[in-house]
């Protein structure tokens, strides 16, 4: 049972993130929701590579024993880098929207076509 806790955490993170994106009205809270979903998927990737009783996969002066898989760690690193780039772009666009409309409320931006 204790080895299922990471998977339950993954499901909780993704659901809370989806709730924040769909139901919150502030633009910054939507961006935070996307970061939560991304953290959940990264946790899922790392958890897949764990073997019971394993050590870190480094060859230099290793004490011996099973090593956990290093490939999901590389995939997670790539995903974190992509997440940073997307976060930077989304926050820049939020700054521009705030300059135009003066508010961050999603119901008040987006008026009629000019």
């Amino acid at each position: 049972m204790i080895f299922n806790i990471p998977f339950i955490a993954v499901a909780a993170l993704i659901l809370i993130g989806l709730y924040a994106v769909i139901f919150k009205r502030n633009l910054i809270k939507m961006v935070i929701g996307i970061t939560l979903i991304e953290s959940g998927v990264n946790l899922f990737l790392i958890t897949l590579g764990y073997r019971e009783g394993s050590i870190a996969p480094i060859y230099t002066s290793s004490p011996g024993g099973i090593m956990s898989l290093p490939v999901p760690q590389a995939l997670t690193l790539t995903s974190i880098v992509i997440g940073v780039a997307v976060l930077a772009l989304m926050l820049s666009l939020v700054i521009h929207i705030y300059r135009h409309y003066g508010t961050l409320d999603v119901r008040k931006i987006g008026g009629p076509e000019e």
Partner: protein
Amino acid sequence: MSGMSKIVKTISSIAFPFITIYGLYVIAHGHLTPGGGFQGGAIVASGCAMILVSYGSIWIMDRVKEKNLSILESLGAVCFILLALLGLGFGTVFFNNFLVGTNSLFGVVPAVGSGLADINTGGVIPLMNFAVGLKVIAGLFGIVLVMAYASRTKEEKK
């Protein structure tokens, strides 16, 4: 934004060289211990962002220009692609590790299952780590600088 109080400025100036050295250590040992280009670059960029927050964006704006950061970033990225294309130039495939096994710069091969390996191993990987680290430092610091510039309030614009 304006800077913070004198205590904060002093402490962040003392901490900044340590953070930079630690970040460069993480970049340089990327092929031996956990770390590498992006991780070390993010550490150094966090140190630079700490200086930006504590000294104020007006002070930084006089000393660091955004187009110099852009040139550094492009140089790092061009070095990375040229290193990958050099594998093509040496007769084999793209992204080939052509320095492993030779007795030149990073070319020593450690024995399998050995203890501590030297930093002199790894082939073309440490060079790519340096290129990526330079790009990440310049890129992340540039993003933070431009955002600080863009979110000045109306009173400071006058």
